[in-house]
């Protein structure tokens, strides 16, 4: 699981987390969870996002996933709250 975040640098980790919080309900399910559980949740939400956008489902924030996350978009979540 650490691989999911150690491959990308600083502000990208923040961006990934913010994106998943805003559009894939990260953390709203896992309030006050331990670090490990948060990583598991992050990987699962990443997979959900990659599947939605037809990307390779790896659970890791690779370049094409980051590219989609940087695109301007609608503020409504992609999954039901």
């Amino acid at each position, binding site marked *: 699981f650490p691989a999911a975040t150690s491959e990308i640098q600083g502000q990208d980790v923040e961006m990934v987390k913010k994106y998943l919080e805003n559009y894939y309900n990260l953390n709203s399910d896992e309030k006050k969870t331990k670090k490990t559980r948060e990583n598991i949740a992050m990987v699962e939400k990443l997979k959900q996002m990659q599947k*939605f956008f037809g990307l390779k489902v790896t659970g890791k924030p690779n370049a094409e996933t980051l590219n989609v996350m940087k695109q*301007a*978009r*609608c*503020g*409504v979540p*992609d999954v*039901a709250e």
Partner: protein
Amino acid sequence: FVLTEGNPRWEHTNLTYRIENYTPDLPRAVVDHTIEKAFQLWSNVSPLTFTKVFKGQADIMISFVWRDHGDNSPFYGPGGNLAHAFQPGPGIGGDVHFDEEERWTNDFTDYNLYHVAAHELGHSLGLSHSSYIGSLMYPTYIFSGDVQLFQDDIDGIQAIYGPSKNPIQPIGPQTPRVCDSKLTFDAITTLRGEVMFFKDRFYMRVNSFYPETELDLIAVFWPVVANGLEAAYEFAERDEVRLFKGHKYWAVRGYDVLPGYPRDIYRSFGFPRSVKNIDAAVFEEDTGKTYFFVGNKYWRYDEYKRSMDAGYPKLIADGFPGIGNKVDAVFQKDGFFHFFHKTRQYKFDPKTKRILTLQKANSWFNC
């Protein structure tokens, strides 16, 4: 399409809307007209009607706001999150908020208000995001020149409110399916060793890294020529791809549309005014000639002399026997011409002037 969780919908179909304030980026009249057009997209395909009111509480309140604007979903400044809307319901239900820190436009430049408004109103009526790349309800902003509902969007709104009262049921364009045996193409070109197939607003691209054929909107690369391409060819010597639509054409290099385009085919290539558009085109590297296919004839253009060769046009049936009288698209690969007409593909050897194989048009997509 995806209906919002819990299937929220408006119980009455004659809805009201009010524009509470205006962005300084556009004249008020333009904003009024843009919002009205965005509502029309949805009323054209459903029994819904929308009436503008100028005071009090409307079903759908539209406003331009900054950062934290009191709805627990703040904006974060330019880019990223452009706007949001609330599902049908009382109070804030149905309302649309645009981020005033974006630059709102009524052209290709970021961000086109008509496109974003039409999308947000989908949420106001009960739709969620679609994962169909061409749908209006797709979450990321990809503006392809015109704003229209896709069949996916029409199916969604009609699933909630039923069909429109229009006698002729409107149908929207479909996202092409690469393995549809009836798939035909508008244009095809090589591009830096790859092959790009164009259909409506989409491109399909095969490359060795992925087994899957990539399908996306042309607007992702070149918003200015985002739909209705008719011909395309790569002039590899200058790393240029030329894209034709009507009597105009653009030259692109990678993502960039080269300055000074569009140009017209009459001045650039010497076509007579009787030629209204090009069906297909291909550059032959060995000879430095480009072949243009128009109706049942073809022309040959010398890229180095920059002039049309004498004695043209000629009949396609004479110059390329066996491929028929009309070409939809053509590209060159490994010295052979691949001609496409409807669902057929002919592999043609320009040296021996013989057809080597006859295949389905979508044989390149590993179906």
